[in-house]
């Protein structure tokens, strides 16, 4: 279908602020009387703090207050508190000092006396599962979303059941599902692989540290924070602060990168609000780079084992997967479960068994990072597919086509269907751009010490949700105000999805205003901006509100000129009679009529099924124009997927273990493309992050003392300009999804995983198909593999250098 706006590039309204420096991020705000706070962070990986004496600090000139764990809500179970007397990792915030300047606050921290008793700590999840192994929390070693804090140990027999350096498969799991006849499928398989693996945890390291500023005014708490999401932040953030959601004014117009770590409310953001309440002055909390490492979360690491059966024709027929997740002291995100779902959808084995267990570790809190679970497991699975292809004599592209998810795909423990899936088309499109048939012949090509490797990678993430609200207003000046509570994580999808409203209402984009980034803009209840969902979810909500406004415009015209609504149509910012185009109202006139008519037209009467936040926002703007407001009640049958394929060529130096990426092409299956340039930027940017995930990034710990070794960019090694090709290729399948009014699905996460797994496969290919059992693959691992030497780490060891 041809659209006027969708599928075309545009200038997102927030980009001008980004290139002029006028964009205000949290640390750019100032307030009259503002003071600064500094955090006292735990120097120990697990400890008990007592006898805190702040008197000397408080006696200092310029110190205005101290906030301790006693001043903030205590958390239940394994949940993370804002401040704690029971720190669970090096860097866990114990207390905060506020002073008239940061220097004084930092000096005051030095004057605080406290007792700190070291407790046993654990970094390696498997060690915590040993009989008698250490628990990361006093009360247990296992927890996650929906999994209460508990102690769980495997038996000595479990550990003995596996060969040395193999992951034991008999230990008790807390999450599991299965379908099909696993034994039968394995025995019928032409090849079976059984690999233990480790995927390292890596830090998010968003460029903008999570600084926040807060003050209270007339009973309301004003909070300037850094978050990917907007409306979704409010309930949880208000709870952290201890107020009703309607008493929170939250401002987050810009977010300097989150990648999952700022998608939902996080405890430390509430700290300046508590401090401000206590001392009665605005409080700025500047977070340093090192603090961002501690507080900014990290991707869960996996230790696991996968057994894969493949039939002679290349079909993956059986998978047995077990994942132990290290997710920090509070459990983190359920990456382990997501990984299993991804395996199921990407290869659709006839039989699959999944078991998982999220183990607590005394490392910084884990959090969702772009493709949490899906992208780790892509790096484990894709090279195994290559292994099967080689052994069975099947082309590596072909084996992926054979297993590619399509519209009939059923996946996961609950055997869900998909709304649509075109991974074969993604593979085909990528192969064409990459010239697969020719390029694959370069595999193994030598040039001195250098060798060419060619790889294909794939990844998946779910791509949408349903049931959120849309809100818009046509003002008497004729301008269309689109209220979006979705947030702004930097993908411009808040703007691209707003264009759906303009498209439906035949509005010029120049006449649209996006209201966002600030509670006071009267925003609807929208889902968080994470999980590749925005394009799907928000476009449905906006479509629903636009259709509501459309109907109201038609009815207003019918009331004005007679006849029924269906005798009228919209065009060029007017509503006109199909029979007599002279009978028309401009949107400006229609908005005024809506105000005059009142009722539902002006937002005085609103649907009952709206979220309270949307109700409040719609009510606040009622009477100011024509109000379009609706909940997304469109049917949703099955899960909308985002699927991606990446194609990569590398030249690997067998003497240094380093490589250069010569070419990369990424293709995404995400339904209708609504913003080509934004999509291209995501495909390429995702690839850059994927390259880091596969080859450089990992958190490293001193196992003896539980101290982190890479808290800054320099050691954490996110890719720079020189680590990636200066040009990257991107494309999209661009086939509409039937369960979105505009055919749109989300896309942000698998574009990272497909590049990461393409790189792993390309490295493996350069080395004749060597399977590394570990990510990232770093140069010394490559050198050891080439030399046939043992690796410097034990197979299941974690947090290695």
């Amino acid at each position, binding site marked *: 279908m041809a659209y006027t706006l969708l599928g075309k590039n545009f200038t997102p309204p927030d980009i001008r602020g980004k290139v002029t420096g006028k964009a*205000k991020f949290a640390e750019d705000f100032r307030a009259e009387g503002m003071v600064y706070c500094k955090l006292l962070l735990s120097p120990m990986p697990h400890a008990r703090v007592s006898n805190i004496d702040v008197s000397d600090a408080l006696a200092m000139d310029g110190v205005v207050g101290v906030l301790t764990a006693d001043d903030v809500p205590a958390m239940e179970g394994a949940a993370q508190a804002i401040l704690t007397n029971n720190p669970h990792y090096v860097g866990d915030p114990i207390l905060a000092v506020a002073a008239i300047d940061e*220097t004084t606050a930092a000096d005051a921290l030095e004057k605080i006396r406290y007792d700190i008793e070291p407790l046993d700590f654990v970094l390696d999840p498997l060690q915590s599962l040993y009989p008698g192994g250490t628990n990361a929390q006093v009360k247990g070693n296992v927890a996650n979303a929906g999994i209460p804090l508990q102690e769980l140990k495997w038996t000595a027999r479990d550990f003995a059941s596996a060969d040395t350096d193999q992951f034991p498969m008999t230990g008790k799991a807390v999450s599991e599902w299965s379908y099909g006849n696993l034994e039968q499928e394995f025995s019928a398989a032409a090849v079976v692989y059984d690999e233990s693996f480790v995927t390292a945890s890596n830090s998010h390291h968003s460029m903008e540290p999570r600084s926040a500023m807060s003050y209270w005014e007339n009973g309301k708490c004003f909070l300037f924070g850094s978050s990917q999401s907007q409306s979704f932040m409010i309930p949880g953030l208000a709870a952290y602060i201890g107020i009703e959601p309607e008493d929170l004014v939250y401002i987050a117009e810009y977010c300097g990168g989150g990648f999952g770590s700022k998608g939902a409310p996080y405890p430390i953001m509430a700290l300046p609000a508590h401090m401000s309440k206590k001392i009665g002055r605005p409080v700025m909390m500047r977070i340093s*780079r090192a603090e961002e490492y501690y507080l900014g979360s990290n991707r869960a690491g996996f230790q696991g084992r996968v057994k894969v059966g493949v039939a002679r024709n290349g079909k993956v027929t059986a998978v047995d997967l077990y994942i132990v997740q290290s997710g920090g002291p509070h459990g983190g995100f359920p990456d382990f479960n997501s990984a299993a779902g991804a395996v199921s959808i990407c290869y659709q084995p006839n039989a699959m068994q999944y078991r998982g267990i999220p183990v607590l570790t005394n490392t910084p809190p884990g959090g969702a990072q772009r493709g949490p679970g899906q992208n780790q497991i892509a790096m484990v699975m894709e090279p195994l597919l290559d292994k099967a292809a080689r052994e069975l004599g099947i082309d590596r592209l072909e084996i992926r086509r054979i297993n590619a998810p399509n519209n009939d795909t059923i996946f996961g423990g609950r055997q869900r269907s998909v709304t649509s899936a075109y991974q074969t088309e993604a593979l085909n499109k990528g192969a064409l751009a990459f010239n697969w048939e020719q390029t694959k012949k370069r595999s193994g090509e030598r040039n001195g010490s250098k060798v060419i490797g060619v790889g294909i990678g794939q990844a998946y993430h779910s791509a949408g949700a349903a049931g959120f609200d849309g809100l818009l207003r046509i003002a008497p000046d004729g301008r269309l105000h689109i209220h979006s509570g979705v947030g702004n994580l930097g993908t411009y999808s808040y703007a691209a999805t707003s264009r759906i409203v303009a498209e439906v209402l035949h509005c010029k984009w120049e006449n649209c205003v996006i209201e966002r980034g600030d509670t006071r803009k009267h925003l609807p209840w929208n889902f968080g901006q994470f999980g590749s969902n925005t394009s799907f979810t928000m476009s449905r909500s906006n479509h629903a509100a636009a259709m509501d406004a459309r109907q109201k415009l038609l009815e207003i015209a019918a009331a004005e000129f007679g006849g029924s609504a269906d005798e009228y149509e919209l065009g060029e910012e007017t509503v006109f009679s199909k029979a007599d185009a002279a009978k028309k109202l401009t949107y400006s006139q229609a908005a005024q009529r809506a105000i005059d008519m009142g009722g539902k037209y002006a937002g005085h009467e609103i649907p009952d099924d709206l979220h309270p936040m949307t109700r409040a926002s719609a009510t606040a703007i009622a009477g100011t124009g024509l109000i379009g407001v609706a909940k997304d009640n469109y049917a949703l049958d099955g899960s909308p997927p985002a699927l991606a394929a990446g194609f990569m060529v590398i030249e690997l130096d067998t003497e240094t273990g380093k490589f250069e990426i010569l070419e990369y092409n990424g293709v995404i299956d995400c339904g209708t493309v609504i913003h080509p340039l934004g999509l291209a930027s995501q495909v390429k940017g995702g690839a850059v992050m994927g390259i880091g995930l596969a080859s450089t990034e990992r958190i490293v710990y001193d196992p003896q003392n539980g101290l982190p070794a890479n808290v800054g960019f320099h050691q954490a090694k996110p890719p720079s300009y020189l680590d990636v090709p200066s040009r990257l290729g991107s494309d999209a399948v661009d086939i509409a999804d039937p369960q979105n009014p505009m055919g749109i699905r989300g896309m942000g996460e698998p574009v990272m995983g497909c590049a990461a797994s393409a790189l792993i496969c390309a490295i493996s290919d350069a080395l004749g198909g060597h399977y590394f059992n570990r990510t990232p693959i770093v140069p010394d691992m490559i050198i050891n593999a080439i030399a046939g030497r043992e690796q410097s780490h034990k197979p299941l060891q974690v947090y290695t250098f």
Partner: protein
Amino acid sequence: MKDPTTFFSGSSPTEADEPQLTRCRSSRRAFIKGVIASGAVAASSAYFLSGCTPGEGPAAGSVERLISLHINGKIRRVDVLPNETLAMTLRYKLGLTGTKLACDRGECGACTVVIDGVTHYSCSTLTHTVGARSVRTIEGLQGPDGELHPIQQAFIDELGPQCGFCTPGQIMSTVALLEKNPRPTREEARRALSGNLCRCGAYDHYLNSVMRAAEVI
């Protein structure tokens, strides 16, 4: 009451000498620690926060506190502590918050400014070392009527930024590059901007922006 909106209590009354001395020593330790930790031999102020106590009058042998800086074509008088970095002066004394702090230790380039045509990490430049040199920040690029600099326009046209936090630094590196080399190759641009990290990985689009800007300048 002191002005709490400034980052340093720059106008606070003189304090006793001894604490000042103690704190200065602390600053030196933090400085050395910071240099070691970051591996950045050129890092000047490792951690501003552990600096000397603000607010003292000039002590014997110390530098003049009230100095004139040439920022974006204007002379700005500003009270600067001896250990103050240019990034902090810009952000917290002069209200120029377009210059971003992402690492504060010379690792990422988010705070890049141009001093006499050369890019500098303002987080690792002591303000007192700037002297009479000309400092350009992202705020100095727009024309008198707010019209965008061609580089800024190119960054919009190519959808250069994603989250935007590193963008001012990327643009300032581009300014310095194109002033010196108006027709760079893509590879030259890549190397010129290689001191600017972007966690969103928008490098390709940033380079497209630089090359587009080079066509129109």
